[in-house]
């Protein structure tokens, strides 16, 4: 199912990491208002593809555009429209949850209330807010990362293994937030091992193997 305008267009892209082709002539697209699932084994290139779309990593051959912006020339412009949650939490261990959320809100120029309301939605509230991030469990850190990514005023969310470390409750909250995000006409790309979980929610699915993408 394809909706509206094309948000991501990756054509025949090759990304080399240390001489190794992490993406090999890979083509991939995402449309407005859809949830796209990417499945694949470890090392298949899922993370590299998401980082490419987030404007974090460059590429060698091919063409890639996000919101019509050429990733070869304007990666920093693309980043303004994209939220990304990766394996790392992107948080500071020696700041409290509140301080981290305030810092992120200041960086992104979004109201602090918005960041806190998403944190509450992901079950981060009360005493947890004044706890140092370094003392949180991996699942709690993931919840804070997800809350900060969802609170961005972005049109495209790239979630790399978002279910990792989350408990059942956390996974359900993530799915509710993803569906709500999609209902706003925004797009979500999820790279996940929890294929069965995301299958029902996703509009389209891709499978990755050896740096190549196959549509399902």
């Amino acid at each position, binding site marked *: 199912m394809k909706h509206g305008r094309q948000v991501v267009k990756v054509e025949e892209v090759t990304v080399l990491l240390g001489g190794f082709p992490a993406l090999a002539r890979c083509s991939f697209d995402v449309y407005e208002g859809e949830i796209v699932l990417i499945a694949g084994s470890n090392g298949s290139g899922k993370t590299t593809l998401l980082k490419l779309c987030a404007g974090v990593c460059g590429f060698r051959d091919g063409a890639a555009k996000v919101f019509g912006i050429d990733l070869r020339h304007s990666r920093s412009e693309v980043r303004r429209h994209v939220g990304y949650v990766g394996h790392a939490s*992107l948080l500071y261990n020696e*700041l409290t949850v509140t301080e981290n959320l305030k810092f992120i809100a200041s960086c992104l120029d979004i109201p602090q209330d918005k960041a806190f309301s998403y944190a509450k939605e992901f079950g981060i509230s009360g005493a947890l807010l004044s706890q140092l991030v370094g003392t949180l469990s991996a699942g709690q850190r993931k919840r804070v990362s997800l809350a900060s990514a969802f609170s961005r005023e972005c049109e495209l969310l790239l979630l790399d293994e978002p279910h990792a470390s989350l408990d059942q409750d956390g996974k359900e909250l993530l799915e509710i937030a993803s569906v709500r995000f999609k209902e706003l006409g925004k797009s979500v790309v999820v790279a996940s091992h929890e294929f069965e979980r995301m299958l029902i929610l996703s509009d389209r699915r891709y499978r990755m193997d050896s740096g190549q993408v196959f549509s399902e």
Partner: protein
Amino acid sequence: MLKAAKVIALKDLRIELRSRVVLNQILPFVVVVLIIFAFAFSKYPTLLVTVAPGLYWVATLFSSLLALQRSFSLETENGAKDALILYGLDPAGIYVGKVFAVLVEMVVLEVFLTLGIVLLYSVHLHELVDLAFTGLIGTLGILAVGVTFSAMTSASKAKETILPLLLLPVVAPVLLSGTKAWENEIAGKAGLGDPWVGLLILFAAAFLSLGTLTFGSVLEE
């Protein structure tokens, strides 16, 4: 740029206030360095007075290395450096914020360092304002280079050794000019009009400009 600089500087200083790495780890290192030299030259107290300006700048340089490494280890932990790129903060602002935060930490350290030199080496300081200005501008020069190099080496596994190898040769002019300027100021021969102070100002201005212009490319690598 200033908004990004403020956000980064406040964040770094808040983390330092909580962790107190500068006060609890780097300051003891500086004190130990001063004491070791005091023991080494204990038979020649006049020599200690003579070499005190050089020791001050060597201690400042080494403690700057530790403070810079600490500053960027915060960003490599949990991939926070990627977050700064993703948030779309002005790279020049990130650079200025980092320089400012480490400068504040170094100023605190240098107050203790100066006290140590007075107490342990019996150096009489007269032109305190001149000495403080020279210390500040020299440290700014070291950090102007150091923040760029720390960002470049922060992802390397051998960052602890690569950073000194890169930084020390480049900031050698600061060590030389700072030492000469302090010698002259302690001897009451020259003030802020000293050409060595001029060289420190030129060095800091040149590398601050270069760092502000190039930090975006450094972060992207």
